């Protein structure tokens, strides 16, 4: 005979376990396409995911369902979403993805936010045969990962692409005698910053530039004044910061306060956010960063408009577009395959061409080809500069005009 506390504890345990599992039962009549994703709604990654990824997922699902659903063969199937919060923890992300696959039996998975998270879940996607179209991961080893996990796509490309685009542009300026040899560069001591800084260092060395100042700062630094002060003293023509959104704001702020006016001013993630323009108003003019859009493209304009209407906010001008293009690829691959069979869809992703907001692309390289990697704020829009061969690529405005006092709109 059980004593009463043991009995009640057992009941409690059984009830908890039961409710934890029973609610996860899949509703799996094929009258809908189940799409699942685990993303950082809380924790340190929530800021990035909340701007770049989550709104695009919402927008895409909204659009597809408004059109009656995904076209699978002869039928249109509406999308049913299962979403989890990975709480910015790799362990939780892996577990949530496994839950989506084995409990919710989702048809397709959307990727999480950030390089680290995508890498954490990539083996699980691979093991169960789900294609991974990572729209927010920058990694030098993208080609190697594509080999290791053949259905993984690293749409944002490698750090070198961005670093080389920047260095090419600078080399051109130097050749024209507009800037000198000295560069000041700072980077955040986190995956993205170090990846970019390492790639940039190699590219600068190859091009014969001198790094007069090259330092990193840790995540969570709340005062960047000493760094900007140091950089300003060297009076470089070019200032580069591979930074995260809070530091991007702080560095720009500090440069303005100190009257630090290099001819080329380049900051990292966050520069292409609408927040940046809201915060600095007319002072954004001439600031350069990663990404950029083809402002002449009607598809891009329409996308920005729809994004604003559906999610209430403008998209960022870099990874948002790539994330959305990844969703378009997935959608068209399913429609081309005419089935929800993941093997067939994966084959389409690997071999077909797709009409996306980034133009007509294929993913044979497992990255977005001919992507805009260097952009600049010009006339209130963050436009792409490099590669110059890209449709709608603008010319760099040089030099960046000096900061104005009190130009912030609010």
């Amino acid at each position: 005979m059980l004593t009463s506390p043991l009995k009640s504890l057992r009941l409690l345990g059984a009830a908890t376990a039961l409710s934890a599992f029973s609610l996860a039962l899949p509703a799996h009549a094929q009258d809908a396409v189940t799409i699942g994703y685990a993303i950082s709604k809380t924790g340190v990654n929530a800021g990035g995911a909340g701007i770049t990824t989550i709104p695009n997922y919402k927008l895409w699902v909204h659009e597809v369902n408004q059109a009656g659903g995904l076209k699978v063969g002869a039928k249109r199937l509406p999308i049913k979403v299962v979403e989890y919060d990975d709480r910015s923890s790799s362990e939780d992300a892996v577990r949530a993805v496994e839950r989506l696959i084995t409990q919710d039996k989702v048809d397709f998975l959307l990727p999480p936010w950030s390089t680290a998270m995508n890498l954490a879940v990539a083996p699980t996607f691979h093991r169960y045969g789900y294609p991974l179209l990572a729209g927010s991961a920058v990694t030098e080893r993208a080609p190697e990962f594509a080999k290791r996990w053949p259905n993984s796509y690293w749409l944002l490309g490698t750090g070198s692409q961005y670093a080389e685009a920047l260095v090419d542009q600078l080399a051109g300026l130097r050749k024209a005698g507009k800037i000198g040899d000295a560069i000041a560069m700072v980077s955040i001591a986190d995956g993205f910053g170090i990846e970019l800084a390492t790639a940039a260092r190699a590219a600068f060395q190859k091009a014969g530039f001198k790094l007069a100042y090259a330092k990193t700062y840790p995540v969570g630094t709340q005062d960047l004044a000493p760094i900007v002060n140091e950089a300003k003293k060297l009076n470089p023509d070019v200032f580069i910061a591979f930074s995260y959104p809070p530091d991007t704001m702080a560095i720009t702020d500090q440069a303005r306060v100190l009257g630090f006016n290099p001819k080329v001013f380049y900051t990292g993630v966050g520069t292409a956010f609408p927040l940046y323009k809201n915060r600095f108003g007319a002072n954004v003019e001439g600031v350069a960063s990663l990404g950029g859009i083809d402002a002449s493209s009607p598809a891009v304009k329409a996308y920005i408009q729809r994004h604003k209407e559906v999610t209430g906010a403008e998209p960022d001008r870099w990874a948002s577009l790539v994330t959305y293009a990844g969703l378009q690829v997935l959608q068209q691959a399913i429609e081309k395959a005419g089935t929800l069979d993941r093997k067939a869809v994966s084959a389409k992703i690997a071999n077909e061409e797709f009409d996306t907001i980034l133009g007509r692309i294929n993913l044979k390289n497992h990255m977005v080809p001919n992507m805009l990697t260097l952009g600049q704020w010009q006339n209130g829009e963050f436009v792409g500069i490099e590669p110059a061969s890209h449709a709608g690529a603008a010319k760099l405005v040089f030099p960046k005009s000096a900061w104005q006092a009190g130009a912030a709109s609010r």
Partner: protein
Amino acid sequence: MFIDALFSGITLGGMYALVAMGLTLQYGVSRIMNLAYGEFLVAAAFCAYLLMTGLHVTPLWGLLLIVPIAFALNWLVYRFLLTPLVKRTRTRAALEVDSILATFGLLFIVQGVMQVTFGGNYYSYSYLNEPVRILDSVLALNRLLALGFAAVFGIGFYLALTRTRLGTAIRAVAVDPVAARLVAIDVRWASALAFAAGGALAAGGGVLVSMFLTFNANMGVIFTMKALIVIIMGGVGNVLGALVAGLLLGLAESFIATYVDPGLTIAVTYGVFLLVLLVRPTGLFGRAAR
């Protein structure tokens, strides 16, 4: 270069002190290890943001509105959420454990509400971000202002605690709640007052830092942790200690960034903190008792 590092260290340190002072009151006097401290601070930052961008009320006027509300709110939190815990626990250690668990829950609630309201996005606005020239060194006016408030709050609370009857009563509660009752001090009232004042200080800090920091709904923990480091280093319950410790950390950070390597700044602040504790196990101005 030296002057630049000095000034930027002092302003940064002022900010650290500003965000920490409230916690030293809440923990030092009321014995509530408030893990939700940073969440209240960020909530105040959001309020300042809304006032500024929505109603064009500048943060300094916002202070007049937000700080009293925070005071009242924290009073209610203490009165209704924490008093039951205070009543049921017999020892200080037990209250510490209970308050950690309860405010851990509170942390998630406040964070969740901000999450639902504002999403995970970053928020930022610009106010008084104007250069001020002092001795050939250029500083941002808003950071300087935060430093000024930190000094005023720090010295003000120090004087209030040491020079007034009420302050003496509060200090008595901090030292020994049981003995304080024996000399006719209303311990629960004094604790509630200290907790509410601490919450009001946190809100003030939140409003002031929102002028120059970019924040989102998930950043509260960062402030709580920084505050914990500062108050432990300064000595629990000592407002002036928090000011000194904050300044020390700010200076260490800025001098390391200028003369050694910005990559080591945070490591050095923790290094300084650990060193201080190894030399003085109860902080710079701490009492020897456990």
